[in-house]
């Protein structure tokens, strides 16, 4: 692979990575349902990252994201 082509590939990969990162951080959100909220609370991806790290969100049999707890969050993930 020529150096020119490698440079172009690196720029493309970097743009893709930064684009995904920016999109996730700024725009990506999902509705999460809970016992107290049947309409679904739009939750940012960064908040979802924290929730999955403690097993705080599951997908229920109806395909909706649902909180596994109310009140105080679990201390660590279920695994």
């Amino acid at each position, binding site marked *: 692979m020529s150096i020119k082509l490698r440079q172009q590939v690196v720029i493309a990969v970097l743009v893709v990575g930064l684009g995904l990162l920016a999109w996730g951080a700024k725009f990506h959100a999902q509705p999460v349902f809970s016992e107290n909220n049947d309409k679904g609370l739009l939750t940012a991806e960064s908040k979802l990252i924290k929730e999955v*790290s403690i097993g705080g969100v599951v997908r229920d049999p109806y395909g909706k994201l649902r909180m596994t707890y109310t009140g105080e969050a679990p201390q660590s993930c279920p*695994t």
Partner: protein
Amino acid sequence: MSTAKQSPIQKVVSKLIAWRTAVQSLSLLVWLDPLNFRMHTFCAPVFHCYACPLATFACPIGVIAQFSALHLFPFIAIGLLIAVGALFGSIICGWVCPFGLLQDLAAKVPTPRLKIPQWMGYFRYVVLLGAVLAIPYFYGEGHPLFICRICPAGGVEKALPDVVSAALGGNPIPWPNAIKISIVLAFFVAIFISIRPWCRIFCPLGAIFGFLNRFSLVTMDLKEHQCTQCGRCRTLCTYGIQPDKQPNDHRCIRCLECTQCGPKALQTKLLFDDQPQEETKA
């Protein structure tokens, strides 16, 4: 013997290389959360379990697997790994990953070491595609082969400290399940009879960064006209790679030891740093 003129980044590397363990240790100040920031809304680009009481950030592999189980695309985790990989490749593995540091420290113990066949490096992609993506997606996080359930980082960084602290405090010991105990024991045996076994055979994060070695801004460059085929770089490489044949091999963790060969034919450089290198007589 003539030696190639060093690239600007290689000059820095040459000075830092003797201090690699110190750099790895200093990076712990970022990953081990000394100020109790607990920023688990963001991933770190290193292998460090978020269940660890000393984890500043979330583990990107754990997040990708959990999102896969939820049938969500993890934009932040994937974007971060692609961007960091495109910048540095597997330098992250060799210089700042805490799990790599643990294995490097064990490698300093003078015990007989088993050689790991090169082909086993491909198994990391099996772990990535299977235990991180496919199994979580199709079977959820309850499957026994879900990555977090078989990951030694969770056992070493969470389960083990829990057991020790409970034992020291005289509390009931929260024993992990038999599989986790077996994995942790196997890990500790493996790091004393081989060099970086987790990184070289299993690490899904290393698979991503290693794959991007060929497409990273910081790259390894072989000056073929400077190479004397002395084989010194192969001796310097403790991972059994042939840096003179494949300087950007996907199994390389970029410890950069191979750049210390006599003719300095192997160098770290920026991909856009393509100015002609002058020769100097040594």
